[in-house]
């Protein structure tokens, strides 16, 4: 099943490519829908009380290099996979309604993107992960460059490629180095389980850690390596942005949990503070930037930097509670940011702009759109009662136990989120209607798509345990590995100090 899930989107993309032009969007949407159904079947099959991998596929692939075709799913990835299929379905369906130029290539690229992303979440072999991770870049490059908006789109894609490619190459080097050093002249193995079992000596961990961290931080993006974000977000077609911001950014955070923490536990403990500072800087900087922007894409973009800052904070607090919050928050943020981008897709389609200073008063004839937008806004600012609030609470309460100062400062981000999210809503839906704009209700198709996302948001708000209860065991086991090193380290220093 996991295999079909992985390759179905690409297959659907290929079929869509070959199908008559009229059917292309429908085939692609059907493929995305099929992927969602499979993901839900996986979820139904999922045993919440097992910490280890489930649905494992393990085939030898390149024996000389020790590369295996190894897939699996656990409590960390299960909901990320489900979210990926939900968001891709939303983006594909939305694109299908407003069929773009050259639909065949477009939908092929969408399918390829989904397969690559799912691959990254499912891969249990380090090299396989790296391969999928890099493969994600390719369709994004085409989609933004080929269907993007504005003169600057080529520039924007090149900037994005340069940034992420640098990160990816470093990671590739890191992956190879890890395997070679672990093998130590013996049989190479890229299997994550093997790498986890034979941890590298601390000094090697220290530099390889940063190779991986670079790739993941750029992908999220985190503070100071987010230079590609603003141009890419401005240029990308909005449905593509749903995938880029909603899902691809999460792969970075996921990589920390899946690879960095268990494979480089000593380095993780060693650089914990550095990563926490980066997380905090992302929260503050993202929030401050978000409230000076007027372009809705960038408000959402910078708020994503802040949100991923929270997620990083949760991961590197190295506590089960905070890390569970981080996993929950990855899903929450994906859903919310997808909602924002699709809503602005609807709005800018009619008004030709997603600049909030040029909008206003749209709520009067569009109560359904207003309500959907409102729920998404409230979830964005993590109002208590939303699942985002529970995510943030878990993250912050974990941080609060061990790193009080970080937690308290991070709260500034919570207050600022209230302002910039509400401002985005208010400037769009409320106040006077500018001349030349017309308030119209959302049409049926987009309404169903956004309504579906909102339904997911509301369901999680009512019952966040749905995710937490399944993520808990895997997350706790992952964090415990790093925590163990922490204890060892403390023991060692206390031995040596007297």
């Amino acid at each position: 099943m996991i295999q079909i899930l992985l390759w179905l989107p690409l297959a659907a993309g290929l079929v869509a490519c070959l199908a008559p032009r009229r059917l292309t969007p429908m085939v692609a949407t059907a493929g995305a829908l099929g992927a969602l159904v499979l993901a839900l079947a996986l979820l139904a099959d999922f045993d919440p009380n097992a910490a280890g991998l489930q649905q494992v596929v393990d085939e030898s692939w390149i024996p000389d290099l020790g590369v295996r075709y190894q897939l699996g799913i656990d409590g960390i990835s299960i909901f990320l996979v489900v979210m990926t299929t939900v968001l891709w379905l939303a983006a594909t369906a939305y694109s299908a309604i407003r069929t773009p130029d050259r639909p065949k290539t477009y939908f092929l690229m969408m399918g390829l993107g989904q397969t690559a992303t799912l691959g990254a979440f499912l891969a249990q072999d380090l090299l396989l992960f790296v391969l999928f991770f890099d493969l994600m870049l390719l369709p994004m490059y085409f989609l933004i460059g080929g269907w993007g908006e504005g003169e600057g789109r080529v520039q924007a894609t090149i900037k994005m490629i340069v940034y992420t490619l640098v990160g990816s190459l470093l990671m590739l080097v890191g992956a190879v180095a890890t395997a070679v050093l672990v093998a130590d002249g013996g049989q190479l193995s890229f299997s994550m389980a093997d790498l986890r079992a034979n941890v590298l000596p601390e000094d090697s961990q220290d530099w390889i850690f940063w190779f991986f961290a670079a790739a993941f931080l750029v992908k999220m993006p985190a503070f100071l390596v987010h230079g590609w974000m603003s141009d890419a977000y401005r240029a990308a077609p909005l449905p593509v942005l749903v995938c880029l911001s909603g899902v691809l950014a999460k792969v970075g955070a996921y990589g920390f949990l899946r690879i960095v923490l268990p494979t480089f536990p000593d380095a993780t403990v060693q650089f914990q503070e550095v990563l926490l500072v980066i997380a905090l800087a992302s929260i503050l900087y993202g929030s401050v930037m978000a409230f000076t922007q007027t372009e809705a894409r960038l408000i959402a973009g910078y708020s994503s930097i802040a949100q991923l800052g929270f997620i990083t904070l949760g991961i590197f607090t190295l506590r089960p509670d905070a890390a569970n919050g981080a996993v929950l928050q990855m899903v929450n943020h994906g859903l919310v940011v997808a909602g924002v981008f699709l809503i602005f897709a609807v709005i800018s389609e009619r008004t030709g702009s997603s600049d909030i200073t040029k909008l206003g008063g749209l709520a009067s004839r569009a109560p359904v759109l207003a309500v959907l937008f409102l729920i998404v806004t409230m979830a964005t600012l993590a109002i208590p009662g939303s699942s985002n609030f529970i995510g943030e609470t878990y993250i912050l309460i974990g941080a609060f136990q061990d790193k009080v100062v970080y937690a308290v400062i991070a709260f500034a981000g919570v207050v600022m989120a209230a302002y910039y999210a509400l401002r985005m809503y208010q400037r769009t839906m409320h106040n006077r209607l500018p001349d030349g704009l017309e308030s119209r209700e959302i049409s049926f198709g987009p309404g169903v798509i956004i309504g579906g996302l909102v339904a997911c948001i509301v369901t999680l708000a009512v019952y966040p345990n749905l995710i937490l209860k399944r993520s808990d065991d895997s997350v706790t086991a992952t964090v415990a590995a790093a925590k163990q090193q922490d204890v060892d380290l403390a023991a060692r220093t206390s031995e040596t100090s007297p």
Partner: protein
Amino acid sequence: MNPTAYAWLILAFPLAGSIVLALGWRIWPGRAAGWIGTGTIALSFLATIGALLQVLDHPVEERQFTDTLYSYASVAGLKIDVNVLVDPLSIYMCLVITGISTMIHLYSIGYMTTDRGFTRFFSYLNFFVFSMLLLILAGNLILLVVGWAFVGYASYALISFWYRRGTATKAGMKAFVINVFGDVGLILAAFFIFRELGTFDLLDIFSGARDSFTTNQSVAVTICLLLLVGAFAKSAQLPLHTWLPDAMEGPTPVSSLIHAATMVTAGVYLIARFFPLFELAPTAADIAAFTGLATAFVAATIALVVTDLKRIIAYSTMSQIGYMVIGVSIGAYSAGLFHLMTHAFFKALLFMAAGSVIGAMANRQNIDKMGGFRRAMPFTCVTLIIGALSLAAFPGTAGFFSKDEILVFAAERGGMYWIFTVGGYIVAFMTAIYAFRIGFRVAYGEAVEEAKELEGGHLHHAEPANPATGELEDTDVGFPGPEHNIAERSWPMRIAMSVLAFGALFAGWIQVPGIDDVVHNFLEGSFYSSSLYNLEIPNSAAYLGMIVGGTLSTLGILVAYWLYLVRPGTTAALQRRLRGLHGFLEHKWYFDELIDLLVVRPALATGRFANNVFERYVVQGIVVGVTDVVRGAGAVVRGAQSGFLRSYALLMVTGFAALGLYFLLQAS
């Protein structure tokens, strides 16, 4: 039935009402939405009475019940359930909230009849009541925070209900952001509590605190101060009060709801609910009490000079909440909560009467432009005077008994607490003056044109304009007027106001020193563990307090009579003579300007710096640096690249394909 079963019903009715109204926004004919909305709250009120009767069956010390619906978010050592706590305190609050809210809903059916957002209004209103009830009934701190934040959101939605008005949306935003600031205080308090006691459940917190905290231990004080940040933001105490006067941008029933039954009382409830912690942190409790007194004083001084009818009443709310905060902070729990109830009656009534007057004034709110409505609007004026009497604590009215109880308790507690007695009476004197500043200005004096027109049977109409800016309203969405209703012409409004007027006059008689003690005895089930709860107050002291209070109130009313009716020019002369002071008060002690200077401007400046300098030079600088390096490297292999997008793409595809092919071949 179990008391907790009733609690779930109390919550279910308004929530269901809100959702049903929202989903059926196109279906409900005429005023059906209004009746549905009113009905659900009335049902909630009945459920509260059911819970009350159940609880009364148990002995005083066994009147606390909890019940869990489902596990909300409980992993990794945290336990967060959806659970309720039903005890005398929560039932008492629910009675006040649902009772008063039913009347406000009823009033709104008349008041909002012609508003285009009629259904939307009732949906919001029901949601507001649901949020408040959730806050009150929550059995753990996280759920309490949820209710707390929902109240903040609901107030935002209702304050900016007429969302085409720039001033309304701005006011809504202000209320929301200040409330979120308060939420953060509360959440931090929750985190501290969790770290120290390892639980979020209220009853466990209270028993845990008694076991593990010593008096005035710094962590207990910190927790209480953080709780106070939340309480002050919600209850509009200094310096987090600036949103409350602006909240007058909402329709008048909203002001009534926010000020009487919901929202601002939440802070008072919070302090009362966490009394075991505050008694372990007397320093924090004293800070709260002093803030309450300062707020009561500052708000009263402002209420003496502002001219907007609704804003005068808004500042009076701040001032009265100050009394309640003093009460629950110094240990006069039953007195503070008693005042909460009597205040709910007369404040809701005052706003309703004001709404009726504003209707007759075609939406203008400046009291300098009003006068002589007593013949044109006899019913409205009678209820207005009743409300003002109760606010002024005139002997025999509801406000009289409750306010005195707080001040006498302070005196009896001795030590420095006499300050609150003296300060409280000074404020009470000012309260009487401004209460009748409203009463005399509106009802008596020479009839203005609108009043004369109304006497002739014609309701004054005017172009709908924003009373704050004079800007013409956008009539596309709902707006107040010109088809405004006055109480004289709408029976639902009249019924609601009559019920509240009855309460404003007589609700105080359920607790008269030396005669009966209904509220005190009932609340004992929540506060029996407090050492201060049964502080003996001799009847002689209580009666002395009542004499002082009654005298000051009467004096204040006489002063107002002299100032506004006998010598109407005096106030203008005073304004001229004390121009500096008047300006200072008219600018509301410059709190808005202070917050602007200390918070808003630095935040915006940081944002601009980040955007214009940091992002442009540092972050993009890195980009340029990286691309330069790549370009430099690229120049070497330029021959292989054509630089066009498609060629890049082609290159990448072939590259990947070749790579894939290689690995595939390797594998086989």
